């Protein structure tokens, strides 16, 4: 590429007059100094780019760690505390959750289901211990 600077026929004479040994020496010196500075500037630029990349990577890591830490250690909504299963409350739907014991206690005493166990139909009492002890019939069955 080479954009040609302005020149005229008189430039040839002017150049012949101005260009001497001292000019050649200066030209060589300044050129090599320029190349040295150019190389140093290029290396400096590369160093800055590397530093910037490292800083970006570190910032991304920190951000990720922060997000992860918050997601792991964030306090659960009050109703979802696993230590209090009886009072579990659905966060979004507002539905109540109950334990198995609670569910069984909702059935009347002596409740049973007809279940098929190993191909045979069996009567399964929800309160197995109560069934062993026997049930007291209420007066209306007499």
């Amino acid at each position, binding site marked *: 590429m080479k954009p040609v600077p302005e020149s005229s026929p008189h*430039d040839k*004479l002017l150049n012949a007059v101005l260009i001497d040994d001292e000019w050649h020496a200066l030209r060589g010196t300044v050129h090599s100094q320029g190349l040295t500075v*150019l190389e140093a500037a290029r290396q400096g630029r590369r160093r800055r780019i590397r530093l910037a990349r490292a800083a970006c990577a570190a910032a991304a890591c920190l951000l990720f760690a922060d997000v992860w830490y918050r997601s792991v250690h964030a306090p659960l909504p009050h109703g979802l505390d696993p230590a209090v299963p009886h009072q579990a409350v659905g966060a979004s739907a507002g539905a109540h959750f109950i334990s198995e014991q609670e569910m069984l206690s909702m059935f009347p005493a002596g409740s049973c289901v007809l279940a098929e166990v190993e191909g045979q139909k069996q009567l399964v009492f929800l309160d197995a211990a109560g069934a062993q002890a026997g049930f007291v019939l209420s007066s209306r069955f007499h």
Partner: protein
Amino acid sequence: MKLLTLAALEPAELPQARAESPAHHRELREWTAAIRAGDAAAFTTFYEQYSLRLYKYLLVLAQGDERVAREVLQTTVLKLVRSFSVFDEEERLWAWLCRVARNAYIDFCRIRQREQRFVPLPEQAMELPEAHDEHRLSISLQHALELLPDNDRELLRAAYIDECPLQELAQTTGQTYKALESRLSRLRQKVKLNLLQHLRHETGS
């Protein structure tokens, strides 16, 4: 051989806005971007093309003081290398180069002013338009040549403007090749001395 007349040495026309093609703009942009990116080959090409032109500009700014012009050229080139800009027009590139050179020269003068305390800051350095360096140098060259005898001017023209082979010139002038070389060398020295003196007096007055 033609006589070197003053008409032949009229100041070169000032650089005019040249019609530059989009391809030229693109090339210039790529070239300056390469220098900016630290491409040594691109810088070398730039330096080959512009160092002498910048030196001439600085020579006018420095009123013919070669030592100052050379010192400031060194500073200017290093400044350019550190923060090269991207251009797509040659004129704008040259205007920027001149601005950097002028600022480097002003800085140089300020430092010298502080050291010596009596050197005035040259006002013309603030005013000199980029395009006028070649014009002023041409005028000074013209004056320098006027001080030479006709036959010497004729010889210079033949050797450096018409680019006649020296062997041929030696035969024409009836001198040996070596003697002609020596004569041309002395003439160049004399013209340079006159030119620098004219620059000094012209810009100093």
